[in-house]
């Protein structure tokens, strides 16, 4: 699994950081930061949920 984000689209809702804090955080500007680009399979469900909750569709999960 590989996680990429589009910071230009990010609207800083923080949904990802709340849903999957091991993988996502917000920087000082409030925009998304990926903490682990290749999270383990045990985080798969949470990461997919975070992507689904993102209101600006800024998160992509591949692999």
């Amino acid at each position, binding site marked *: 699994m590989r996680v990429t984000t589009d910071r230009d689209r990010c*609207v*800083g*809702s*923080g*949904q990802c*950081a*709340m*849903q999957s804090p091991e993988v996502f955080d*917000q920087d*000082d*500007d*409030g*925009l998304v930061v990926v903490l682990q680009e290749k999270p383990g399979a045990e985080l798969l469900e949470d990461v997919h*949920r975070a992507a*689904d*909750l993102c*209101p*600006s*569709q800024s998160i992509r999960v591949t692999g």
Partner: protein
Amino acid sequence: MTQSAEPADGTASPYPQFPMRRTCPFSEPGEYAGLRADEPVSRASLKVNGKPTWLVTRHEHVKQVLGDPRVSSNLKRPGYPHQFHISEEMLAHVRLMMLSMDPPDHTAQRRMLIPEFTARRTKEMRPRIQEIVDERIDAMLAAGGPVDLVQALALPVPSLTICELLGVPYGDHAQFEEWSAALMNHDLTPEEYGAAVQALDMYLDKLVTLKETEPGDDLISRFLEKNRTEQAADHVDVVTMARMMLVGGHETTANMIALGVLALLEHPEHMAELRSDDTLLPNAIEELLRVFSISDSGTARVAVEDIEVGGVTIRAGEGILALNNAADHDETVFADPGTLDFHRKEARSHLAFGYGIHQCMGANLARAELEIVYSTLLRRVPGLRLAVPAEELRYKDDAMVYGVYELPVTW
């Protein structure tokens, strides 16, 4: 179906009227389930002016519309589905708040505000919110029951939290609260209401002017500081933004506080569950937000290009109401949607805060306020109960934001 509207030109509209009433305060209007099943993208006519609009009722379609850059939030665009009466002349003079702006203006202002509402910043505000809640509950307990929980707790908590956020000087709190409470008081005459709005606007104007020269440790000051280089807003924009914070974070949170308490009082088994396991609280709040979806039609849009939703073509210039209460009762996403289930795994998928670039910025702050209010009430007022029969409560059926007018309680 509801009766046809009578548009200004005298011809009867063939469409059902919007808004539709909730028959049960804990659910969606009865017509929504049928629309979702049979005609998920349907026509309706706005009760206020008889004009046609599209209603979108399925969860996937509501997300699709609100995530589509080809729809606009600009309420000045022809075809925008206004839900209150506003003349062309008044409309021309309206100053757009951020929630009515489109990119790039919206993006510039929102980016400057995002840092104020991150999960981390919200966490930092929690101790102060806890103090506010404790002070209000102290006052409530000292006064003795019965009290109206709306006036005693639900309204003052968001109001004082916004004071904190905007940097309203302590000496002005009482006055500020009086004006902001007036924005929610439906018993005022139009003149009294207008006077309160004007007084509040003048106050916010002065507050912004003060912070331009004497910045403090608050949202307005930080916004002004960033704006020196970004130049995304002028003075009036900043005043308008301050008003948006107040309006957006005030009545909504207050109504959710009161409705959530009511839901717990009406479901003692749920209340007992929360009391015995407070780790359930965050998901319980998502479920309460889902069930009530108090800002059902706050997601009004107008198409700027032709778009296809669920096999239906919505033409450029046509209004759309992407109904989040309907989406949040979509049985394909939330099984048995009318049941309040604090263990519901997908509760967070609700759209009560909207979706897309305009999703509520204050959502995390609202969540923190709700969590602190509910947990403190459960802990400090264990005997809390309604002081009147539930059937006597009056609900805000015709308001833009759903709620309960009074919630008399005792303990």
